[in-house]
C-alpha cells in the first residue's frame, strides 16, 4: 500500500519527468494555451531558431485584444491592437498550432473555451501565460499561469521546471443558501486569509458545498485562486465532471472516454492524506460579498459598512485602508448599499459562462438598468446559447450593450475601458488600481449582484430584490 496521497500529489507525480539535485521537478505539460500576449515568447523562440516541440498539445486563442463590437480584425481602429491579433494568427500558423481565432465560431476567453471544448480534462498539467489559468483546476488538473520566459520554455520543450508547492485544503461545509455563489465563497476566503494568504500553496477545494457546485461554478471558484495568491486551485473530479465532459468536441471518444473515466475516478485525496494547511468555512457564514478597496482581500458582506481606518488596530492595515478609500472615493463608515455606481460590466473568465448570464438575466428581467453597462459572454458559443434562450433580449431591454466575447472590460486591452473616476460594479476578478482603465474604480461581485446594482443604481443585496426565479448560480439544476 502506498501512503495516503493528496489529489495534487497524484497528478504531480504522474507528470514528473525528472527531479534535479536541487529538488526541482521537470513537469510534463498536457495542454499549453497561448494568446495574443504570448508574442514575447514566440519572439524568444525565434531568436533561438527553435521549433514548437509539440504543436499538437499547444492551442492558440484570441481573447485578450479582440474587439467586442464586431468580429472583423480589419475594423480594429488601433493598428497596435490589430497587430496583436495578427501576430497570434501568424505565430500559430507558422508553427502548426491550432488556432481559435477571432472569426472562429468556437472563439472565446481561453478559460471558458478550454473547458467548453473538452480540451481541459482531469489529471492534466496545464499552463498558459495568464494568471487565471488556475480556472482549469476545476476538473482536477494542476493548472497555473506562467510568464513569457516559461511560455517559451514550454513551447521549446513541452516541460516546465517547478518547485513543488505546499498543499492546502479549503473545506466548505454545509449548503449555500439561495443567492450565494462561488464568487462569494472565493471573496470570503480571500478576505479572511488575505490576497497572499495562499501564496506558496496549491489549493484543493472540498466539502459538501463544493461537491454541490456545477462545473461553471467550480470554474469560477478555481479561477479566483490566484487572487488569494494560490499557485493553483483544484477540485476532485466526480460525476458532475464526467457528465460535463462526455461528448464535448475534444473529449476522448468511445472506449477511450470510459478508460479515461476509470482513471479520473482515482483522482481524489485519500481519506488520511495530510495537508500543509487546512481551512474550513461553513456555507452559512457566506453572504453576498462585494469588494470596497483595490485588492480582492478588501471584501465584505453586502450588509456591512466601509471600514474606518481609524478603528483598525494594525497600522499596516489602517494605512492600506486609507489609501484604498482615497482611490475608491469612499467614506469610512459608509454603508456598502449606499455606494452609487456609474456603470456595470458582466463578463470575463471569472463570470461569463451561461449560468452567470442566466443568473444576471433573472434579476434584470422586466427591469431597466439605471446605469450604462456591457455584457460580454465568455465565449461565442455561450453567446449563441444565451441568444437561443432569449437572454440577450433581457439585457438589451434593460438598456445594456450585448457584445461579442473577449476579455473586454476586465482588463481593457481591446479599448473597452471604464473612464477615470467612474465606479463600475463588475463580475471580473481584479479591483486593482487602474485595472479597468486609468483611474477606474472597480467593485467585484457575482453576476446576480451586478444585476442588482444595475437595477437599483447602487450596490445592493440581491436577496432583497423581488426576483421571479432566483437560484444560486452555483446550484446544480
Amino acid at each position, binding site marked *: 500500500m502506498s501512503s495516503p496521497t493528496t489529489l495534487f500529489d497524484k497528478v504531480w507525480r504522474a507528470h514528473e*519527468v*525528472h527531479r534535479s539535485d*536541487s529538488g*526541482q521537478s*521537470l513537469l*510534463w505539460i498536457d495542454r499549453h494555451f497561448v494568446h495574443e*500576449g504570448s508574442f*514575447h515568447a514566440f519572439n524568444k523562440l525565434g531568436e533561438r531558431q*527553435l521549433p514548437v516541440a509539440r504543436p499538437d498539445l499547444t492551442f492558440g486563442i484570441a481573447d485578450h485584444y479582440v474587439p467586442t463590437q464586431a468580429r472583423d480584425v480589419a475594423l480594429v481602429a488601433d493598428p*497596435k491592437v490589430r*497587430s496583436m491579433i495578427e501576430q497570434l494568427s501568424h505565430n500559430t500558423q507558422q508553427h502548426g498550432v491550432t488556432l481559435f481565432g477571432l472569426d472562429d465560431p*468556437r472563439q472565446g476567453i481561453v478559460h471558458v473555451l478550454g473547458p*467548453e471544448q473538452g480540451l481541459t*480534462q482531469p*489529471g*492534466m498539467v496545464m499552463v498558459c501565460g*495568464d*494568471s487565471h489559468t488556475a480556472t482549469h483546476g476545476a476538473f482536477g488538473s494542476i493548472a497555473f*499561469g*506562467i*510568464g*513569457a*520566459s*516559461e511560455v517559451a*520554455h514550454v513551447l*521549446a*520543450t*513541452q516541460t516546465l*521546471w517547478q*518547485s513543488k508547492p505546499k498543499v492546502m485544503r479549503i473545506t466548505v461545509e454545509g449548503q449555500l443558501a439561495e443567492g450565494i455563489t462561488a464568487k462569494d465563497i472565493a471573496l470570503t476566503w480571500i478576505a479572511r486569509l*488575505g*490576497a*497572499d494568504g495562499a*501564496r506558496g500553496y496549491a489549493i484543493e477545494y472540498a466539502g459538501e458545498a463544493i461537491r454541490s457546485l456545477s462545473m461553471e461554478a467550480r470554474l469560477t471558484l478555481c479561477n479566483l485562486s*490566484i487572487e488569494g*495568491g494560490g499557485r493553483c486551485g483544484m477540485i476532485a473530479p466526480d460525476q458532475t465532471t464526467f457528465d460535463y465532459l462526455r*461528448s*464535448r468536441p*475534444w473529449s476522448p471518444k468511445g472506449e*477511450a*472516454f470510459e*478508460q*479515461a473515466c476509470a*482513471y479520473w475516478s482515482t483522482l481524489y485525496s485519500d481519506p488520511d492524506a495530510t495537508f500543509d494547511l487546512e481551512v474550513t468555512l461553513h456555507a452559512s457564514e457566506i453572504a453576498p460579498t462585494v469588494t470596497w478597496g483595490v*485588492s480582492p482581500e478588501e471584501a465584505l458582506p453586502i450588509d456591512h459598512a466601509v471600514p474606518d481606518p481609524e478603528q483598525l488596530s494594525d497600522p*499596516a492595515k489602517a494605512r*492600506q485602508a486609507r489609501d484604498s478609500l482615497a482611490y475608491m472615493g469612499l467614506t469610512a463608515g459608509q454603508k456598502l448599499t449606499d455606494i452609487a455606481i456609474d456603470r456595470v460590466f458582466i463578463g470575463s473568465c471569472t463570470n461569463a459562462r451561461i449560468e452567470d448570464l442566466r443568473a444576471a438575466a433573472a434579476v434584470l428581467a422586466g427591469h431597466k438598468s439605471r446605469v450604462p453597462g456591457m455584457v460580454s459572454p465568455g465565449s461565442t*458559443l*455561450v453567446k*449563441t446559447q444565451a441568444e437561443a434562450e432569449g437572454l440577450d433580449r433581457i439585457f438589451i431591454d434593460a438598456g445594456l450593450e450585448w457584445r461579442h466575447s473577449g476579455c473586454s472590460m476586465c*482588463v*481593457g*486591452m481591446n479599448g473597452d475601458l471604464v473612464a*477615470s473616476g467612474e465606479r463600475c460594479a463588475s463580475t471580473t476578478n481584479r479591483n*486593482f*488600481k*487602474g*485595472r479597468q482603465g*486609468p*483611474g477606474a474604480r472597480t467593485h467585484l461581485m457575482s453576476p446576480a449582484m451586478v444585476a442588482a446594482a444595475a437595477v437599483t443604481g447602487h450596490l445592493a443585496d440581491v436577496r432583497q430584490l423581488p426576483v421571479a426565479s432566483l437560484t444560486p448560480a452555483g446550484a446544480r439544476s
Partner: protein
Amino acid sequence: MKPMKVVTSLGVALPAANVDTDQLIPARFMKEPRSVGYGQFLLYDLRHDDHGQPKADFILHHPEASKAEVMVSRRNFGAGSSREAAVYALVDDGFRCVVAPSFGDIFASNAVNNGLLPAVVTEDDAEQLLAALGNAPSAMTVDLEALTVSIGAVSVPFTLSPVWRTKLLNGWDDIDMTRQHTDIIAAFAHQYAEQFPWSAPSPPGASLIGKG
C-alpha cells in the same frame, strides 16, 4: 543572463503593499515591442497625474533615481497578472533587485528568469529598510552570496530559494538546462502516451465543431 553576486547601487523606497503587476505596467502598454524599452512604462499611472504629467514628488522622478538598481517595497509585491512585462519594465529601468516581505509567485519566477532578484525580508526588516531609505535614493548593497541587504549601518538577511540563488549566481537559462535532458523527456513522453492514451487531444469531427 549575466551572473549576479553583489549589487552595490542606489536603492529607492516604494512604501506600498500589494504593488500588483497592473500597477507595475498598465495593460495598455503591453502591445509595444520590447525594443522600445519598457522602463518608460514602469509604474506609469502612479508616477503621472491624470494629464500624463510626471508627478515631481514621485521617487522615480528624483534626479538620482535613474541610477537606482534596488527597490524596497511592502508585502505581496508583483501580485496578480502573470505579465512578464512587469519585470521587463523594472529591468529596462535599470533595476536588478526588489526587496519585499513577499512576492506574487508568478512575478518571482518571471523575475529570476530575467536576472532580477526577488529578495524576501521580514515585515519588520522591510520597514527598517524603508525608514533608512526615506524619500531619497540612498546607497545600498545586496549580497547574493551572503544573503544580506544593507543600507549604512542597517543590515538584514534575506531569503531566496536555493535553486533560484544558484541560477542567478551563474546566470543560467532554463531552456539551455532543459535541452540537456532531451532524451529523458522523449522517453517520458513515449511512456506517458502509452499509460494515458486518452490524454492526446482528440480533434472533433466536422459535425462537432459547432457544439459547446
